[in-house]
């Protein structure tokens, strides 16, 4: 079939292509400079595999936490008339603006062994978050949650609340209406938010290294490994970054395919 209105306006295409080039060129720079000859050596260390595994586990767990806590939070911001909702919404953007290292310090101040909450966790349960894999997850969740909340709140605002009313007239409690009507309706928005959240968690560095430290096997995620590699051997840092990129883009694309496949 002939394309419908195929003449795409130049005034849009040119900035769009510049924008795309701007995002893609640096990547090409990395690829060009990558030490392809010694690539296999760089990759074959056990630490790389471990860091990658840890990165994926932590980013996925952090995304799960963000979903469990963030979706209800987004719902509260979008659908209820609770006083102080505006302030709450402003607070949600805080971790976006806070330099991640400071975010890590702030997390230490709260959940550290001497922290506001952490001291009780430690003395009552003998349990301490920093320098554990759980700590990595907490740090990543802290930094990434705003992305999920903001995306899901937007999706909820776009969803027609009358479907929830229809569910109520059928006898559904607000919780059931949320679970069986609202959630399926905003699923695409939640998926988009989860992708942003996961990507941000995967790339997280500052808050993680500050709050959870940098222990290979327990808290050293790929970005931390990249950071240390930069100290030692910048070439391998490039390779590590590319590995992280390829894996994450592959996962995102395959998820999208599966997800779109499931809908069609």
């Amino acid at each position: 079939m002939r394309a419908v209105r195929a003449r795409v306006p130049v005034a849009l295409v040119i900035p769009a292509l510049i924008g795309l080039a701007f995002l893609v060129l640096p990547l090409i720079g990395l690829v060009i400079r990558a030490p392809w000859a010694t690539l296999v050596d760089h990759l074959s260390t056990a630490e790389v595999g471990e860091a990658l595994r840890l990165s994926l586990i932590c980013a996925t767990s952090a995304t799960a936490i963000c979903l469990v806590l963030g979706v209800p939070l987004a719902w509260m911001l979008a659908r209820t008339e609770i006083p102080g909702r505006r302030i709450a919404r402003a607070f949600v953007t805080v971790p976006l603006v806070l330099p991640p290292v400071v975010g890590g310090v702030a997390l230490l101040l709260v959940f550290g062994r001497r922290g506001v909450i952490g001291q009780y966790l430690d003395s009552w349960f003998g349990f301490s978050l920093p320098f554990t894999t759980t700590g990595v997850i907490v740090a990543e969740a802290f930094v990434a949650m705003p992305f999920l909340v903001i995306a899901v709140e937007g999706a909820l605002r776009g969803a027609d609340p009358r479907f929830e009313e229809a569910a109520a007239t059928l006898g559904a409690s607000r919780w059931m209406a949320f679970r069986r009507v609202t959630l399926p309706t905003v699923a695409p928005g939640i998926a988009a938010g989860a992708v942003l959240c996961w990507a941000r968690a995967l790339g997280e560095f500052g808050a993680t290294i500050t709050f959870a430290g940098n222990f290979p096997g327990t808290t050293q995620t790929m970005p931390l490994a990249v950071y240390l590699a930069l100290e030692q051997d910048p070439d391998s840092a490039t390779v590590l970054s590319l590995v992280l990129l390829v894996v994450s883009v592959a996962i995102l694309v395959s998820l999208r395919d599966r997800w779109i496949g499931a809908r069609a």
Partner: protein
Amino acid sequence: GCGAPEQPPSSPAAAGSVTGAVTVFAAASLTETFTQIGKDFEAGHPGVRVRFNFGGSSALAQQISQGAPADVFASASPANMKQVADTGAVTFVRNKPQIAVGKGNPLKIATLADVTKPEVKLALCAQQVPCGAAATKAFEVAKLTPKPVTLEQDVKATLTKVKLGEVDAALVYRTDVSAAADDIDGVDFPEAIQAVNDYPIVTLTNAPNAAGGKAFVDYVLSEKGRQVLTTAGFDAP
């Protein structure tokens, strides 16, 4: 200031008294050397595992003061060391500043004065980090006013700028230059000797594995440990 040089122990602690994991918080600039030392130490102490947490000295200090379960802290600056341990720290190596230039020294930089010329793009570390403090000291001694284009967050970032040709010269540590000898050359300058940076190390008072920590510190201070460090370009204290 740097810890008063102590008499290094003539031999490492007896291998038998050490067990479990030793957690070492070390400055990122020690990544290569300490990883090697850790392996050697483990080889000499079967059943002992060394866990490293490499990071910026200040971040490590912050973590330790927030109760991080560290046995040993090796800092790149006495100031960060002071935040966690007032006493007991020992200087185990020193690092001298050096001028880093592009491979082959295209601008023929020979003295500290050369880097202050207007046509030379110069990168320094920020005052707040040890290598920046050292640079300031060196220029003070030479009575020169540098005009850097950037004050970098740490040595490696500074070095990256030289390596990619963004700047013509930078003041960094000798160890860093020798680690990157493939891409850059180093130029020594006489004022460097008066801008030496001390690296202190300590077994922390709250160490979960104090014995292990002590053994590790002793090993770093031992001949074998020194050997690794000086090979990488560090000076003995």
